[in-house]
């Protein structure tokens, strides 16, 4: 069970004099149960890429296959694919439309033609997974706060019980607390359900703490595809494409330059703390 992209390219504006190559020869595989961070600067092709993953855009060149079958084959059930690969767009709260939270979350599973009981069971579970309090199920989604709206919208996609959940900048426009809450919730539901999660972001800080693999995009190409500590080793290259490593990486690099014996590969704050404490102890003993 996996989603595989082979040499996928996509061109915008083929009917104009200046077509733009938004994706350029992308090869990527999304296996089951992996937490992937997709990172790139604005305009690097992240959003275009994710719209390919559930068949909203057709690649201009290359093949995209799900479980070994080309999804652009004539009789491939693309509607079914969209329930397997759940895509949460940027600012997903803008898609809410129902009179109350619960019916909005039911929209996805209802479209799959499921029974009323199954639809409601899935909606309930999805709302639980995103940590939405039950007493507000009957409330109008338009009366909620920004962070709550976003949870409902994410639940709307989760309710289809996808195998792969793709989130395009799920923290855009949220305050730091809302951001941490949403990311924490996503990490939690990843652990709970065991599905694959692709987290799209332009912030290294956001993804460094959660993902097990990072894909860096620049100008429609994949620049790096590796575990976080290896990717953050390329600080210079990341900066050249308008990205930055997490702040702890910078601190560790600075410490190393000043003569402390630290491992600069630590990517999360707890790891860095341990490194620094270790180095300090060595200092003291000498």
């Amino acid at each position, binding site marked *: 069970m996996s989603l595989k992209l082979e040499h996928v390219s996509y061109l915008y504006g083929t009917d104009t004099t200046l077509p733009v190559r938004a994706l350029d020869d992308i090869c990527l595989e999304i296996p089951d149960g992996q937490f992937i961070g997709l990172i790139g600067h604005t305009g690097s092709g992240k959003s275009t890429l994710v719209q390919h993953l559930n068949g909203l855009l057709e690649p201009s060149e290359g093949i995209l296959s799900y479980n070994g079958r080309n999804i652009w084959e004539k009789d491939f059930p693309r509607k079914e694919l969209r329930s397997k690969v759940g*895509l949460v*767009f940027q600012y997903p709260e*803008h898609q*809410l439309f129902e009179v109350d939270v619960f019916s909005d979350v039911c*929209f996805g599973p209802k479209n*799959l033609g499921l029974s009323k009981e199954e639809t409601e069971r899935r909606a309930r579970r999805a709302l639980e997974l995103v940590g939405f309090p039950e007493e507000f199920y009957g409330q109008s989604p338009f009366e909620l706060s920004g962070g709550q709206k976003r949870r409902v919208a994410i639940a709307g996609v989760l309710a289809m019980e996808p195998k792969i959940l793709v989130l395009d900048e799920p923290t855009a426009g949220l305050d730091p607390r809302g951001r941490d809450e949403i990311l924490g919730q996503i990490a939690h539901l990843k652990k709970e359900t065991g599905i694959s999660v692709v987290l799209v972001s332009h912030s290294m800080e956001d993804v460094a703490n959660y993902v097990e693999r990072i894909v860096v995009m620049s100008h429609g190409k994949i620049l790096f595809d590796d575990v976080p500590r290896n990717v953050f080793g390329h600080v210079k290259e990341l900066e050249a494409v308008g990205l930055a490593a997490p702040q702890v990486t910078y601190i560790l690099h600075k410490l190393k330059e000043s003569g402390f014996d630290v491992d600069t590969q630590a990517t999360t704050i707890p790891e860095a703390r341990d490194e620094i404490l270790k180095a300090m102890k060595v200092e003291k003993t000498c």
Partner: protein
Amino acid sequence: MLRDITLGQYYQADSLLHRLDCRVKLVGTLLFIISLFVVDNFPGYALAAVFLAVCIRLSKVPFRFMVKGMKAIVFLMLFAVVFNLFLTPGTPVVEFWKLKITREGIEMAVKMAVRLTMLIIGSSLMTLTTTPNLLTDGLESLLNPLKKLKVPVHEVAMMMSIALRFIPILLEETDKIMKAQIARGADFESGSLIRRAKAMVPLLVPLFIAAFRRANDLAMAMEARCYRGGEGRTKMKPLVYGKRDFVAYGVLASYLAAAVVIGRVLPI
């Protein structure tokens, strides 16, 4: 998808038509539309078609952009044609059941189709070669005399420019919401008419909300910059007629005269 509507969209190019003063283009479009309704025979339409073709040529805008705009009014056109075809009294040509098609009906229908086609292409030519900003500037300056009659010219022009400016924004928004709902399994394309109409709800509700949100933001931004209507407002780029604009007026006047003579006066 929905992006194909070009009505009210600007096509960037450097051509004679692009450089022409927007007032000339507005007056020209108006005159062209008038000419279409004055003219009542096929030589007249031929003249209008030639005039339009020359203008399109001069504008350097690819023809398919104008045809794209046509898609939006296909239904209106079908209505006009069908009604004219069946409901015009005269000598019957074909008769079946209670319907009959008359010779006059066919003539009316064809004329209507030609008129509508040229009308749409003519007006999209104007919007394709004029930025929305200039368009409203031109309109405001042309309608200025109405201010004496207490018509809120500036406000109307501002409303128009905002409406035009919002077309591409809302189209983009529609595209986005549509994709988001398709990702949630929505189906906009298949099913009966009623089912498809119902399927529009998840699209229209968010779209209306988005429109209000945008309007709200815009109002706030305008207020923050102390906008208070047209009173005493000066222009950064005042409209000034050049030599080529007067020549264009001359060409327009002679075109209209020729159209009236060929289309109305000369019995062919």
